[in-house]
């Protein structure tokens, strides 16, 4: 019952696994690898960034991904390879990326630096998200000293670095034979099932068990809420949960697909959806956080649900009793309450492909563009035929206790010409759909005002106006 992982080519075995102990604390206080830093212990600063390597399905290839070690639990390391900042220098000689950063002023106080090194190193070796611009790759890494310029320059200046992953893959394949199925620590139990049947069986036997997918929500309950969790079921290794199937009709995603892996498929569904994914957390959060977790968490400000509801997504739940499929909006019953029976888990999501002529518009509004939670997230899918709106699906996050549709607004639009007057009446109807709350992310007034303005934004965009400051160039040219 021990967790084993590969660190710099050596297998590390942990026998006394506290399933809520974080990888960061294990590295720092057990292995004394203190290069990896804690800046927040809540996934928001990237000082704890490490690379996790795992075999792809089929075990022919492998993939590295940057993750925040501060909110990953030890069992999630089982059967994986880990790279930390200490892994990069060879015989005391800095890796070219490190050397460049040391020379060009990429560090001042240096506390954020190991995290940036790992994010950028991942980009140079083709890790998950390596095709993103440098600023996106480090969007989950905060630096308070440098202003980022030298860091971005180092990332842009370094090309691909070669890395021989053959030995790692051989070792990972061997370790896969002896994967850890779970354990007991003090009076707490944890499981790591490998098949859907085993998962369903475990959940039937332990209906109170807490499912852990990417732990980007649950991790904080432990590090900030100081909670103990009696029974944990880690679903990261369940076969098939990470499948993405794209066809003409749409996309089916396993609940365990991390946002980073769905990014490309989402962009192909619609560029706005791709842009929304780009702005969910930082890359480390998207590398761990799953689509199923985002939905199952039921947060009123989760970013996936409003967009997916507007697009007409359907959710499939599974248990030993069988499957149920429902329109995604029906899953959210009330604040903190979802239509999930004991023993059920979220299995997959199907998203229909929008028709090319559909008007799709998705906007996330937050204080900061990157790595921030929405104050309001609005998603619109309109079908316009012969100048008439024949179909409207409109959903919002941040406007009510759950992500939900703006049915009054939809009704005000359908059957009307796609014209400014209709938009104006739509905004009036929208005001009746929601009574948003005031909280730290926005006042009720702001939320109501921008929700209406997002409908206007859709209209202006349809008229060919620039609608996002993100796309503007400066007058310097």
């Amino acid at each position, binding site marked *: 019952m021990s967790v084993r992982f590969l660190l710099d080519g050596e297998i590390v075995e942990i026998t006394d696994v506290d399933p809520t102990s974080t990888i960061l604390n294990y590295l720092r206080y057990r292995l004394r690898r203190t290069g990896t830093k804690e800046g927040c212990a*809540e996934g928001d600063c990237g000082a704890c960034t490490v690379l996790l390597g795992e075999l792809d399905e089929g075990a022919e290839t492998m993939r590295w991904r940057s993750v925040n070690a501060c909110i990953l639990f030890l069992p999630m390391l089982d059967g994986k390879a880990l790279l930390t900042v200490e892994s990069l220098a060879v015989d005391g000689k800095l890796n070219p990326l490190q050397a460049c950063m040391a020379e060009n002023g990429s560090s001042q106080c240096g506390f954020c630096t190991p995290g940036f090194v790992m994010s950028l190193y991942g980009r140079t070796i083709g890790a998950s998200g390596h095709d993103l611009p440098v600023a996106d790759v480090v969007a989950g890494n905060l630096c308070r000293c440098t202003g980022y310029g030298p860091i971005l320059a180092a990332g842009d200046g370094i090309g691909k670095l070669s890395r021989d992953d053959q030995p790692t893959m051989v070792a990972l394949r061997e370790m896969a034979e002896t994967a850890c199925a779970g354990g007991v620590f003090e009076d707490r139990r944890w499981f790591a099932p490998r098949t859907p049947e085993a998962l369903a069986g475990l959940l039937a036997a332990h209906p109170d068990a807490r499912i852990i997918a990417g732990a980007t929500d649950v991790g904080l309950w432990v590090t900030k809420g100081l909670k103990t969790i009696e029974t944990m079921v880690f679903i990261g290794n369940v076969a098939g949960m990470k499948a993405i199937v794209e066809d003409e009709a749409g996309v089916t995603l396993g609940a365990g697909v991390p946002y980073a892996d769905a990014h490309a498929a989402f962009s192909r569904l619609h560029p706005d959806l791709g842009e929304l994914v780009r702005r969910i957390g930082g890359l480390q959060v998207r590398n761990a956080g799953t689509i199923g977790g985002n939905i199952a968490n039921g947060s009123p400000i989760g970013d996936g649900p409003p967009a997916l509801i507007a697009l007409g997504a359907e959710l499939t739940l599974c248990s030993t009793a069988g499957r149920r499929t429902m329109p995604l909006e029906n899953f959210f019953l009330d604040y903190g309450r979802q239509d999930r029976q004991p023993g059920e888990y979220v299995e997959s999501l199907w998203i229909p492909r929008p028709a090319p002529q559909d008007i799709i518009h998705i906007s996330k509004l937050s204080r900061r563009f990157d790595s921030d939670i929405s104050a309001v997230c609005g998603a619109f899918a309109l079908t316009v035929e012969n100048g008439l709106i024949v179909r409207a699906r409109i959903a919002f996050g941040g406007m009510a206790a759950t992500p939900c549709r703006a049915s009054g607004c939809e009704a005000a639009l359908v059957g009307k010409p796609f014209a400014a007057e209709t938009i104006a009446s739509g905004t009036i109807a929208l005001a009746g759909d929601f009574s948003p709350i005031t909280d730290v992310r926005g006042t009720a007034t702001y939320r109501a005002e921008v929700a209406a303005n997002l409908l206007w934004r859709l209209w202006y965009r349809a008229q060919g106006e620039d609608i996002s400051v993100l796309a503007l160039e400066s007058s310097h040219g």
Partner: protein
Amino acid sequence: MAECDPALRIAAKPSNAHDSARLHVSGAAGYVDDGAEPIDMLHLAFGQSEEAHARIAHMDLSAVRAAQGVVAVFTAADIPGANDVSPVAKDDRLLADGEVMCVGQALFLVVATSQRAARQAARLARISYEPRAACLTIAEARASSSFIEPTQRMARGDARAALSAAAHRVSGGFDIGGQDHFYLEGQIAIATPGEDGQVHILSSTQHPSEIQHLVAAMLNLSSADVTVEVRRMGGAFGGKETQAALFAAAAALAAHLTGRPTKFRCDRDDDMIITGKRHDFRIDYDVGFDDQGHILGLQLRLASRCGATVDLSPAINDRAMFHVDNCYWLPDIEIVSERLKTHTVSNTAFRGFGGPQGMLAIERIMDEVAAFLGRDPLDVRISNLYGPGRNVTPYDMVVADNIAPEIIARLRREGRYDERAASIEAFNAGSAILKKAIALTPVKFGISFTTTHLNQAGALVHVYADGSIQINHGGTEMGQGLYIKVAQVVADVFAVPVSQVRITATRTDKVPNTSATAASSGADLNGMAAHNAAMTIRDRLTAFLAQTFACAESEVAFAADGVVAGKEKLSFADLARRAHMGRISLSATGYYATPGIAYDRSTHKGRPFYYFAYGAALAEVAVDILTGEHRVLAVDIVHDVGRSLNPAIDLGQIEGAFIQGQGWLTTEELMFDAKGRLLTHSPATYKIPTASDRPRHFRISLWQDENLEPTIHRSKAVGEPPFSLANCVFSAIGRAIAAISPEKRSLPPLNAPATPENILRAVRGYRD
């Protein structure tokens, strides 16, 4: 890296990389939390007040004591000596004594076998409070006349008369938010008990001496019994000037009482709740001016939220008053500065120390005057600049090296201000929901601690017999590159490569009675002190060489390829060995006190500053008037660093300071609820800039004329001044909003920070 002037590469002073850069990138740089923990080490957490203002009726700590892993729980009654962690006023308690003054205030100290156990146990206390009336905001404190010290007034001439005589007169006001430091390394300290009651403290602090003195008084020890050490901090920005003492003192107390080593590693959210921040301000003004926009009379009120205790608020608010003039001649002026006491965390030092708020106030007034007259704000700024015959500050200091006009002219030209202003106007005419604007604002920042006696420093230099050199000084390294700058100064004295100089951790047992590393003074003071120490040794070596080789002292020279004495030439290592054999002392202390400064706080007149550092910045922004989103599209900067000690380090300071200032004025928002609880206590809700917030066009040029004053190598301080360059972002956002009604002759009612919500509110307010 920020695009920089290629000429800098061949500047006289080398751009050595940060001395720890290679350690930073490899994860090998040691911070307080990185050393091996002794097996008997204990971990700490505070029980925190949930009330903003209350008498503590009863603390039931039985559940805390009984919790798993808890070794001890201490309260104020357990403190042997002074229950005080304040810098000046003796009003900050380590542990609350009967009364709580803000939410998050430390009530008791949990000592446990792990950090988690300590934190968990701390939440189990049952505290009964007798709540008292609390005032939380500037407005509430003002209404109940709650001040930490008497209201201060700095004035010249007759502002009232000038106002009534002026052709035009406008009054207005706005709010400026506070700012959390968000150093990446949180507050931390390790205390280790030594023999005979002594204690050693490893602390992430900008002010080791203060911690030493506070801990000595707390434990009834002498200062000689307490040693405080800091090699480097993972960021500080003023947040570890006074705020580190609480954690260090707690660790020392627990170590003293348990006899075991202790570590206080504060959780991020607790850190944000417990520690002080940049002061938020309310600015109100009444300004009189002529047709050209010359300011003739100004009455200005600066009201700041100081929080529950005094901390450094008097000096911070003084500095706000000192910076109201910025680069402008304000003939008849009255500044009234209210320092409000509230039941919120005590606000503290933060890069700029009140200066940025003072400067933002006058920049807002410039924009207001320009809007009223329908003139370009830059022209209004330029017509108000200091110049010949109008070069005395409201506190009677002469502005000797008034280089702001030249800096502005260069930036206007190189940043193509006029051309771009025109093209932006055309853009706005054709864009319904996105509006652009540019703004250029200058900076003049006074260098010196305004508390005169703090302007002193000491250093210790050893030359070993193998020719290697060790230096130590009272300054602390927080990423600003102080150590490498001082090492370069010392290496230059002996003409050896900087790699031959080993920089060692700042320790109170090496250099005593030091000032905080603050007020941008680190390199000025410690560089000079180290220079003096090194010169003492060099003078001894020179005399020794002259005697040994029978030459004149004037025939001795230290050069890169060796030391010359008459006709002899030897390596520095050889010289060191011979000098040691010749019984010459190769160790010296050095000392420096800034000359020529004097300031009378009772009248607010005098020369508080040794010199000024200048700069100017030009920002272009775009604002979305439907959502309140904005983007900083381009920034151009010209900044004065004197004859730079290290241009690469200086560029890094300028760029980092600008982005930090941009964050203060845009995304970083501190919000408290009606009970005085901080709502934005984590990076999930408190948003500092990310990499993509850095404008894609970002050009920094250094202004490298030498300092008029004989500072170390005629350089200038660089830590704080560039922070206020970001004021141009706030001006530009206001101007972009104003573009929705170009015919209007007023300013949008924008408050800082310009969050989407505040921008949208200003849009609405400007429309109505």
